């Protein structure tokens, strides 16, 4: 169950063509802070020059320390062969987002002590929310819930292995090379 704090600031997306017309890089930082355990920081988002798969921005998560009882990492949809699919940083290409309008990031939480209260601190290290929207679907839930960073989300991990899904939505039209958007193609190609 998601219980946003009172300080949660939910910014309604402002769908404005004049802002969305620019391809916006966006970085989302998620600090996963389980109670009594070491925090884990993950990054996702879209960046110019990033790829859908492995790129120079992505950071493979090393195996956890022995006896680690809590771990968090991102799963890449198309991981490079041979590498474990555990990522601390996974940036995708702007183009994909603008084309598909949305991108999903699965975030795995491994917890040896079910029932641990966990906080997710969400903020944007770069970029602006507009023209994006950020949603989160907790395990077992059907629906995505929108959050606007900075925000802290607290919930309880009940199973040893759970997956949360982040969804980044681009509110603008897909750039068209034949039209005015084509002029900024080079920004992300």
């Amino acid at each position, binding site marked *: 169950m998601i219980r946003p704090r009172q300080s949660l600031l939910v910014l309604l997306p402002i769908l404005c063509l004049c802002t969305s017309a620019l391809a916006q890089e966006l970085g989302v930082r998620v600090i996963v802070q389980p109670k009594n355990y*070491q925090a884990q920081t993950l990054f996702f988002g879209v960046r110019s020059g990033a790829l859908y798969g*492995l790129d*120079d921005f992505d*950071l*493979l998560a*090393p*195996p*956890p*320390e*022995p*006896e*680690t*009882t*809590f*771990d968090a990492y991102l*799963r890449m949809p198309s991981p*490079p*062969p*041979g*590498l*474990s*699919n*555990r990522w601390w940083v996974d940036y995708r290409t702007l183009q994909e987002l603008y084309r598909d309008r949305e991108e999903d990031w699965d975030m*795995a939480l*491994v*917890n*040896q*002590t079910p029932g641990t209260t966990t906080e997710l601190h969400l903020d944007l290290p770069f970029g602006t929310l507009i023209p994006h929207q950020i949603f989160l679907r907790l395990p077992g839930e059907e629906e995505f819930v929108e959050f606007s960073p900075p925000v802290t989300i607290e919930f309880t991990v009940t199973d*040893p*292995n759970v997956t949360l899904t982040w969804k980044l939505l681009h509110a603008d039209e897909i750039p068209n090379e034949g039209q005015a958007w084509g002029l900024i193609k080079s920004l992300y190609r």
Partner: protein
Amino acid sequence: MSIPHRHFARYFTVLTIFVAGLVSAQASAQPGFSCEGENLLALVLDNGEIFAEGVPLNMPVVGHIYVLNPSAESIRGVEFSLNVPANCMAQSVTWDVQAVDVGSGNNHIVGFGTPVFSDGTHIHLGSVPILYMDPDGDPASIYLGPSVPSSIDGSMSYAQGETSELVSLQPVSGDLGLPVLRINGAPLHYCLDLADYDLGVVISTPGDPFNLAAVLPEATDGYDPGLDLPDTDEQVLITFNHPEWSSPRQLKHDIRSPFDPELSNKTWFFTYQAPAAGVYPAELELHFETNLAVAAGAPATVRDIRGNTTIDLHSQDGYTFIATAPSQIRNFILEVGTPALPPLTFTVDVALAGHTDQGNTGGFEVGATDGFDADFDLPQPAPQPEDFLVASFDHPEWPLGDRYWRDIRAPFDPVEEERTWPFVVETDLDGLATLNFTPDFAAYEGATLVLHDLQNGRIVDLMAAPSYTFTAEGMETIYEFIISVGGDVPEPPPLEPESRYLPVGWSMVGFPLQPPAGQDNLGDMILDQSPDRAFMFRHAGNAGYEQVGTGTGTSVGDGFWIAPVTGYSWSMAGTPRLGSSTVDLGYGWNLVGYPLWFTGHFSGIQGSRYGSTYTWDEMVDQGLISHVVWSYDPDSGSYLNAQELEPWHGYWIRTAVYGLNLEFSWQNFTRGGREGTTAAQLAAGRLVPPELRWKTELQVSGTDGGADAVTVGVHPTGTPGFDPLLDLPRAPAGPDRQVRISAHRPEWEDFAGTAYATDFTRAGGKDPWNLLVEPAGDGPVTLTWERQDWPADLDFQLYLPEQNRVVVRSMAQQNSVVLEPAGQPLLVRVRTPDLMSGTEEMPPTDFALRVRPNPFNPSAEIAFNLPQAGDVEVRIYSLRGELVDVIAAGSLAAGRNHVTWHGRDRNGRDVPSGTYFARLLFGGEVRGSVQKLMLVR
């Protein structure tokens, strides 16, 4: 006492005084004496008294002869004035013969005496050994002391022996009134002139002068009759010793072959035995007269071994020392020339828990032998009953016990040859013992001093690091070592392997070599070789992982994660760290890179913390460090319990304290078989008894290829509860779910969860281990285990508590079982066999009978397994062997079968309570073994 004739002859041979007894008139006719030629001494016997006065005697003062009048009853107060030329090293002396009662009759006695001392003017005879002839002229007896035979009849005659220079001995009869003894002899040897020798040293002491060590061209280093003079002085004080000779072994003159004192040396080993009479302690003295012209530029010394004093003969002509008791023997070495093999020594001090044993000395010196030498080798008493620490050289073959504080050997060339010293440390103390060595090898550049620890096979180059530590267990134990001088120094092993292939994905790495200066960043050392991108992290303690890159510097013992996107073979430039490498550990987990360049075992690691040092086992046992060290298997993507340390690899090491450092010294990791070192020696008394420390790994594998393992066991520091350093929580399950097994400890949830990779307890407990098998699918899983570390009589059952079923009766006799968890977590209990709850579902081996219940009432089921179909009959016998019942089962199918016995005989009558036996017949033949049944009514 009788002596053979040849001995008698030799006795005369060594006598260098030749005396002829003449009547006084004859005596007056004698010319003056010289040092050469025949010398005669007139002894005047006057009615039983010998008197000679004013007769110039050109003779030494060490031998004398007495001639007794046949009618004499005594000899009293005889004095001789002996005028000895200067070159004979004596001046005018007086010979004082004590009165001797010889009784009456025709006594003709020849005696030889040795003066006790000379005061420069008189020689005083303390004892008068008497040699006499029996009536046949054969030597009969030698009496030592002032007494003489009371009566000897007959006349004397004597013929010269083979080597004797004595020509004749002609006794005279008592009828002459003035009996005469005549001895014709060879030149007097005692008229020494050192100018006659190429090199010579005369060693004298009051009572025993003219002991000569010299060199002549015609001499050899062996015994040269006519040159070397056996020492038959009546009172031998000084003598040159040759224990290596069969005979003679004591010389008065020890003449050797020439040598060049500038290039080599010769040594004379002589002893001084304090006079038997006298008041002790007494100051004794040695006088030296030398001819060292040819050795003017070379050392010439006399060394008092026990007094540890060296007299320089170039500047000193005397030496005094204290004898504390009569007949005490003092050993000396006369050494002239430049020693080819100067002494070599090493001392060993041992310290443990505030106790020390210092000054144990080994080595070699001129004069010593490889056996026991009373003056070089010093025995050591047994340790005290408790709280003892005794180090010693171990020589059970030597005469004075096993332990020797000094073990000095014969000289050898330590650069070319090897000698070994067995060395032991006996103690009942516990802690870290330190052996400190002080080698004095200055004269032998290139000589080695090597320690072999027979407990663990380590070989230590003591010239590189003159100390060694080992752990004393606290029980009365003898720790055995071999100290080698001149032996091979352990060579550093080569880099092996020379590179490591880093596959795609994560690997834990460490750097086995010291990189060249300026090339100590990760780019130079590993990352620049990657053909593609590579992720790399290090672990910063509580701060967790920290990404590193090409510019990141490294320190000794740093461990890293690296995940290349493309696999590659990794090598590095650098040199082995031949010194000790120190790795600082933080609290908790440390990602450590093994800093050595060859595979080693954890026992090679030494720890230190706040001035205290520890072995690996001590660190584990004292809770400083976890006994489990994790390595990482890139192929399976999982951690492994590391059994050894490999170069190029990194490891997770967990500490429970701050300030702990690990020392990696390559010598501590090298093991070696030394000739004569047995496995039993290596293990002798040093190991924790196996029943107190064992473990076993149970591995589970699924049909999908997945596998997992859990370790259970006992440990000296283990408890039934949660042991932070022994009981390791499970790492989280990976993203790809596979079969998993863990020690199930729900009661420890508050500590570190419920699943554990290891579960240790203490020995002797009956608490079972509960293992939770979590299958990945619906198929069966196979559980396997090894019992190689188990004590011999250890055994367990595998029991499924949720089904109340024993699935393995004896884990000692079986090493695997197939389980069918049907997709659900399955609890498996490892328990001791005496916990008998549960039914056993294991199929019996072929024909083996199994009875249940047992004891039984009223009936028992007798189960068995048939390898093939056939006729089966089960016979029941009484305790006395009587056939009680036959259960004809008829033809049965192959596989598991059973029959039931209702406790009745063949007539259908109930049989009484008691013990019965069942036996199976298959096809009419007895098969399997007899099974006992207990009927309780």
